[in-house]
């Protein structure tokens, strides 16, 4: 029992009900989106609107998946997210380790700069990147998009990994060094396996940052590397807002991350917890 827990049965019941209502209200928008994805077009725009469809149809899902480029965009989203996550981890893990274990001035400056980078609005970095990638011959590729997305997720990844490294006692490395390991293999063989959970958390957040990105995809892709968020936004046409198809595609796009959350919820909570412990 924590210090603020209420012990009275009556209070607990009231709170339980209040929370249940709050959850229902909070979930309503998503549930409504789900219902709308099963409505026929004239009903999605009904004046006045109703919550439930009177005619249920899966046409919207079929149409969404059959639209040219949608399935390809899903594959692009997955590709880009995987590359971005790997990139983020590969860069963040050594950097975070250096910052926590070797408290050099360079490390402190680096952390400060990384935090500053996080403040840069996407458009500021995105527009010059169009030209940079054009000059590198990488326009409209998933790798280019992944790189851009990593610039956003990298500061957070470094920060998270630093928190996790801090909770690992230095005795482990010392023991490894005593046993003859070099610094690098101490990191690789001893520390990383211990922080597997932390790496999982960092990976999840980096994956999400890429999966949910819109503005970089908008700026940096056109035909080959287009990701699904852009396709969803593109369903708005001047002459007919196709809410049914848009909601269907949005639901489909949210399913993978919901499944991911289900599988890894313990790790995600751990990541958030660390955010509070690190003062």
């Amino acid at each position, binding site marked *: 029992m924590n210090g603020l827990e209420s012990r009275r049965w009556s209070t607990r019941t009231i709170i339980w009900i209040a929370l249940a209502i709050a959850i229902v209200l909070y979930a309503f928008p998503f549930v409504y989106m789900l219902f709308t994805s099963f409505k026929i077009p004239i009903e999605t725009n009904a004046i006045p609107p109703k919550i439930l469809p009177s005619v249920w149809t899966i046409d919207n899902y079929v149409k969404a998946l059959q639209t040219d480029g949608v399935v390809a965009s899903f594959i*692009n989203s997955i590709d880009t997210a995987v590359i971005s996550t790997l990139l983020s981890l590969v860069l963040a893990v050594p950097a975070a380790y250096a910052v926590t274990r070797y408290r050099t001035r360079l490390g402190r400056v680096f952390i400060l700069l990384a935090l500053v980078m996080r403040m840069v609005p996407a458009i500021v970095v995105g527009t010059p990147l*169009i030209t940079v990638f054009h000059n590198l011959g990488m326009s409209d590729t998933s790798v280019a998009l992944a790189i851009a997305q990593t610039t956003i997720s990298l500061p957070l990844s470094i920060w998270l990994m630093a928190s996790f490294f801090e909770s690992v006692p230095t005795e482990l490395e010392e*023991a490894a060094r005593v046993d003859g390991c070099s610094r690098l293999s101490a990191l690789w063989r001893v520390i990383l396996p*211990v922080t597997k959970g932390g790496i999982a958390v960092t990976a999840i957040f980096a994956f999400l940052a890429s999966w949910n990105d819109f503005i970089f995809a908008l700026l940096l892709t*056109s*035909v080959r590397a287009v990701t699904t968020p852009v396709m969803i936004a*593109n369903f708005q*046409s*001047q002459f*007919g807002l196709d809410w049914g198809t848009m909601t269907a595609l949005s639901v489909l796009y949210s399913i993978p991350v919901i499944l991911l959350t289900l599988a890894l919820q313990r790790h995600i909570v751990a990541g958030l917890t660390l955010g509070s412990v690190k003062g």
Partner: protein
Amino acid sequence: MKLRHLLRPGRRSATTASAVAIAAVAAIALSGCGAGGATSSGPKTLTVLVEAGGHAELQPIADLYKKDTGTTVRFVELPYNGLYNRVNSELSSGSISFAVAALDAIWLPAFKDGLTSMNSFFTEEVKSDNFPAILDEAKGGGSNYVGVPAFANSEIVYYRTDLFNDAKNKTAFQSEFGYPLAAPTTWQQYSDIAKFFTKGSLYGTGLPGAVETQYLSTLSQAGEKSMVLNPAGTASTLGDSYSVKALDYYTSLVKYAPPGTAAADWNAVQNQFYQGKTAMMQFWAHAYRQVPTSSPVYGKIGVAALPAGPAGIAGVPGPYYLSIPKAGKNPSTAMDFVKFAYDHQALSASTSLGLVARISVLKQFENKPGYAAFRPMIDTLSAPATITRPASPNWQNIVDNALVPMLQKAVVRGANNSRLLQAAAQQVNSIVAK
């Protein structure tokens, strides 16, 4: 014990590492070619940038082109603003992903420096088969033709034939206003009919506050000869008597329109009509063939030319052109496709949008069933008072930052129209001064 256990190089870490490496290689390999459908390399695929309307129009032409030449036309469809931003962004960076784009007439002035000249295409024969206004806009205000007309469009009046033909309505209208109920031909009639039908849960007319072309048609109907900008393009004509008269008439219709006018865009106006909430609307001609069969008003729609103001009937031409970027890929295939599209424009007439630009094709279809919208469109486009929008490279900027905000303010109760127009004029002046 624990430390020794930790120090043993577990097999797990090795397999994890290799799994990660394999995933990385696979991901990079997959991404290098980008899993997106057909790539635009080689002459076998042509990428055409369109918005929804253009896509519908050009699909049958693309299908026939593939049969004839074997080249696949790949459409990249974007929302209206998205298309403008994409073309702008790509022409600016020089990194062009498309071979052809279907562009709105008002964008040509902004993009003309990045588009290929097509002067050789415009022979006397071609010129005589297109409306002068449409030929004019194909130059984008410059000296070269930078686009080939793909389809013309203009607003027309849509009205509910069931409501207009109802005997009770006819008698009531006749007794209230003194003339028979029929499709409106003047401002006064449009206003009267809108007033008559605004009762209960029905409204007389739709009215957009978030898009500008209906106001611009009203402006032309009032007699304006230089829409928004003077002929030199250096100063705004907003605030003159025509603009005030037009805005006064426009805002007088707000009380006959559903609430939320300030945010009503094309989707809203169209949806309100399809849901049966309004008795009339002014909307683009292509919608006539797109009424959903599940709509309660399906089969009960009539069309007419826009009402005449003091200067007569007038509408804003909304043509689209096929253009080729200078730095684009496959320029010769692109030109070939554009020519093909022009020659087979009749195919576009049977699409869901059903619009064309060539006069000969319009005449071919105007009396066929299902093409009732062509006649009013031709009448509107060929009316003497019809003028084109100014060929200013800053037009989109003017619309977004001066015209539309002004309209949104004007449709609110208690707005001072002439003051709003003058403020908008000043804003336009500062935009074009740069």
